[in-house]
């Protein structure tokens, strides 16, 4: 890792927005390949953020400032991305299911997936089966991720999976689920491909699902 990407990595890890932004500029001007800035500076740092969160060293605020720093850096990198040979690991359509307006966990999942290089289409809250299906088709997504915060709204996930089956889309898209009241057992019972307990595990799961 070059000195400049190491400094970028550190700045993202610390959620030091100003340093990260100037360091990205510096890296671009120094001619460091964009895919290297992305993978070594941003994705690697967000992987470490995920580990620190899993280990209980980072909490939601630290994850948020790192993710927001990473996002600001991505904006600066964007004009150069199209010229580079940067390959996204996959496209994920994400949403909180119909009847549920909770989005803190879902937003963290979006940020962490983005931090891992995934292309993320966030459909927001209260998303019904029809909208999920339209967007999976429009985005040609490899993964769809459902979130629910309530025991009363999580059964709707099964409705969406049934709709995916009926539309013939189920074979071409992996389904991952998460949210406070969910368990692996519930995920298995509705026929999801995976369950993640938090944003960091969601990244690991998404990587696993696109590799499968």
């Amino acid at each position, binding site marked *: 890792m070059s000195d400049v990407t190491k400094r970028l990595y550190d700045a993202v890890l610390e*959620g030091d*927005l100003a340093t990260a932004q100037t360091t990205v500029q510096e890296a671009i001007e120094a001619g460091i390949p964009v895919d290297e800035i992305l993978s070594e500076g941003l994705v690697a740092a967000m992987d470490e953020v995920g580990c620190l969160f899993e280990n*209980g060293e980072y*909490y*939601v*605020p*630290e994850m*948020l*400032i790192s993710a*927001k720093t990473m996002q600001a850096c991505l904006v600066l990198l964007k004009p150069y991305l199209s010229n580079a040979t940067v390959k996204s690991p996959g496209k994920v359509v994400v949403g909180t299911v*119909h*009847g*549920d*307006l*909770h989005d*803190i966990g879902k*937003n963290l999942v979006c940020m962490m997936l983005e931090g891992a290089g995934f292309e993320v289409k966030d459909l927001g*809250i*209260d998303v019904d089966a029809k909208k999920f299906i339209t967007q999976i088709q429009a985005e040609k997504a490899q993964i769809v991720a459902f979130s629910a915060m*309530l*025991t*009363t*709204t999580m059964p709707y996930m099964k409705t969406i999976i049934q709709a995916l089956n009926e539309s013939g889309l189920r074979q071409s898209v992996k389904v991952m689920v998460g949210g*406070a*009241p969910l*368990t692996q057992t519930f995920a298995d019972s509705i026929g999801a491909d995976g369950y993640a*307990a*938090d944003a960091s595990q969601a990244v690991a799961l998404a990587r696993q699902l696109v590799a499968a």
Partner: protein
Amino acid sequence: MNPRERALAALNHQEPDKVPVDLGSTIVTTITRTAYDNLRACLDLPEDTSVSISHRQMDTVYPKEDLLQRYGVDFRPVYLQGPWDFKTQELDGDMFIDEYQLKWKKASYYYDVIGRPLDAAETVSDVTRIMKWPDPYDQGRIHGVRERALKLKEETDYLLVADIMCLGPFEGACFLRGYEKFLTDLHWNPALAEAILDQILEIDIQLWDVFLSQVGDLVDVAAQGDDLGTQRSLYISPKMMRKFVMPRLKKLYNFIHTRTKAKVFMHSCGSVYDAIPDLIEAGVDILNPLQRSAAKMDIATLKKEFGKQLSFWGGGIDVQQVLPYATLQQIEEEVKKTLDIMAPGGGYVFVASHNIQADVTPDRIDKMYETVLRLR
């Protein structure tokens, strides 16, 4: 022992004749309207046509006396009324704006926040400039409150609980500013974060001043909430909790303690194990709800480690993973297990680990209460 003696013994860490039982004495230890209506029908109780909604957003009720007596509930709530000078703004599409200027929208059974008055705040002065705060001293709030509490005190032998009526500083700040923004502010704009926390705290203290001026001599429990936990941990690190949240909770609970002999009941969902020593230090006497399905919230551990300093109110059965799905036999076993762990030495009030939700069938609710009444 009468209900008040029983409950007081338990809250003073003495073993009462029976474990006290709650349903509906606070907005976080009650039942949602759908589950309540289903339960009444199942028990052949007459339909509650003038149902008293205790919390509109959570769609919870203050259950009627007939149900409370049937389930041997040892507590009764007293609560503040709404202000006269503020009218909730009703909007199309099942939305409304409350007196904190929060915009709520209904989806399925509940309302959630979709508009936040401090969303655009940048500086400390914005906190009081861009939003109008509630007036704690609006006379409407106390209308009939003392009379109702006095009547309960004189005519019944239940223990009276001053129900939750204001935002907790941390949760309130997350609501008013938005979770993502507030949690980011803690690092990037701590002065703004502190200003929001302080403003909520000031309103809270004034509201408790108003409430306790009416019922401070009549209640034995003062209930206050502030959700500090997620499913897996505290929202923020214990270190940050000590810097931003605990000093303010301590100020609030000290104020309550100076104004009443009532014990301070603190509600926080989620995994709060790592904050418990600090909460005890801040003046919490009773912890609710013991969300057993969250990380590190095993009730036996809590009882063993903190049972001498803290009373527990809740956790009777988990409403997230157990109550909606369990068989009746599993419910009976869970209740028995809970009592075996929590009852010895007092310091325990039985109620589910949060409000009973719409997806819980009445036979399950009845089984829970029937079992606790039989075994307590």
